[in-house]
């Protein structure tokens, strides 16, 4: 018993810090299943877990500095942007500030349960003290998110969107005379304008005769996206390049049929590889397995 008494007499904050470091992975895994993380990181669960880990790290750092009540603690700095983005994403999805706050509050119980199971056998006082530290810390996290989400969330999103517009449109040379554009994300009017200009420039530069528009990364094709695609195809055609649209996923194909959209006389292929194979065939280029000395005839 004396040993226990000694172990529990110190400040509970370092213990919570050690707990956060020790259970980093498990906490992040549990958070990834909570509505807040689940609904912000819809594409990949790994991303949610990674985001969760960096939040746990920040909390541990704040606990390490004994600043659990301080929303301005330096430890929060590393995750402030990420938290802002998450909070802003939720409020833009139609949640009120109160609802966002409730989702944040839901992050506490899974951590508390882990802490309690780690504290099995500790004295009731010590357990209570540790849980209190954790609760204060999670409350502070909530304040941080609400602050940042309200102040910088929207402008941050707008800024990033503009950046995305500029960087997300590479035109790739696949072969002599063949270029490809892997389209990713929403093809709104602004994006498709950028895509079209970049593609046309590249067609001229590379003297390309074939262009592959790959839409594997486009989440939905509605009438406006289809219209943009067809305009791009028509413009490329005027520049002397034939377009192929690849990567129409089955769900999108079915939706397009119901919507009543077809891409006219545009050649389509299931995948970028199929499209490349098709064009090479058109060009009379045969792909031959390398000979024993590794030479590839071309």
């Amino acid at each position, binding site marked *: 018993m004396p040993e226990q008494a000694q172990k529990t007499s110190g400040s509970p904050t370092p213990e919570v810090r050690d707990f956060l470091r020790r259970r980093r992975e498990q906490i992040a895994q549990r958070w990834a299943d909570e509505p807040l993380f689940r609904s912000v990181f819809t594409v990949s669960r790994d991303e949610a877990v990674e985001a969760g880990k960096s939040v746990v790290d920040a909390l541990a750092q704040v606990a390490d500095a004994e600043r659990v009540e301080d929303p301005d603690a330096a430890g929060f700095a590393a995750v402030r942007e990420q938290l802002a983005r998450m909070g802003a994403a939720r409020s833009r999805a*139609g949640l009120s500030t109160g609802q966002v706050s409730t989702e944040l509050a839901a992050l506490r119980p899974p951590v508390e349960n882990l802490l309690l199971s780690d504290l099995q056998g500790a004295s009731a006082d010590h357990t209570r003290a540790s849980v209190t530290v954790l609760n204060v810390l999670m409350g502070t996290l909530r304040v941080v998110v609400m602050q940042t989400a309200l102040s910088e969330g929207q402008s941050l999103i707008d800024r990033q969107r503009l950046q995305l517009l500029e960087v997300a449109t590479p035109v790739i040379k696949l072969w002599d005379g063949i270029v490809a554009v892997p389209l990713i994300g929403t093809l*709104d009017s*602004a994006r498709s304008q950028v895509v079209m200009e970049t593609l046309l420039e590249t067609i001229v530069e590379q003297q390309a005769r074939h262009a592959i528009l790959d839409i594997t990364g486009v989440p*939905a094709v509605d*009438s406006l996206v289809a219209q943009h695609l067809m305009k791009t195809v028509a413009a490329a055609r005027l520049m002397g390049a034939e377009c192929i649209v690849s990567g129409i996923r089955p*769900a999108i194909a079915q939706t397009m049929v119901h919507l*009543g*959209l077809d891409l006219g006389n545009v050649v389509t292929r299931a995948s970028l590889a199929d499209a490349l194979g098709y064009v090479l065939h058109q060009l009379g280029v045969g792909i031959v397995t390398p000979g024993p000395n590794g030479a590839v005839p071309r």
Partner: protein
Amino acid sequence: MDTAAGAQARLPIRSDMDLMWVRQHVRQMAAALGFGLVDQTKLVTAASELARNTLVYGGGGTMETTPLAEGGTPGLRLTFRDEGPGIADLEQALQDGFTSGEGLGMGLGGARRLVHEFAIESSPGAGTTVRVTSWVGRPPLRREEV
């Protein structure tokens, strides 16, 4: 209810960026309610069409999402509302290929084919309300039912 899919929500439709949020939100709700990938895509696409009409022709408005349950089957209702000029000739507007702008004229008629229930209310000067509903696991309407 308090889950991601459970809450009724109203989203503004005032800009291109709002359209993006509308699609995201519908995708998330449909997934959380148990819609399969194809049905999610259909709902998102219908929402995209209707929300863009709200923005472009209605001068902006809102989308309301309502999760439903009927005899154990989950469903999702989307209501698009604007206070714009309204539509004088609904039949013409619903016709494939009719556009008063620069579109393909496929939005309204197409959206109707992508969902299970479709209702539109509009009169000149009084704005437009379009309400669509789909149910999890129910087969799509056949052409002749539309």
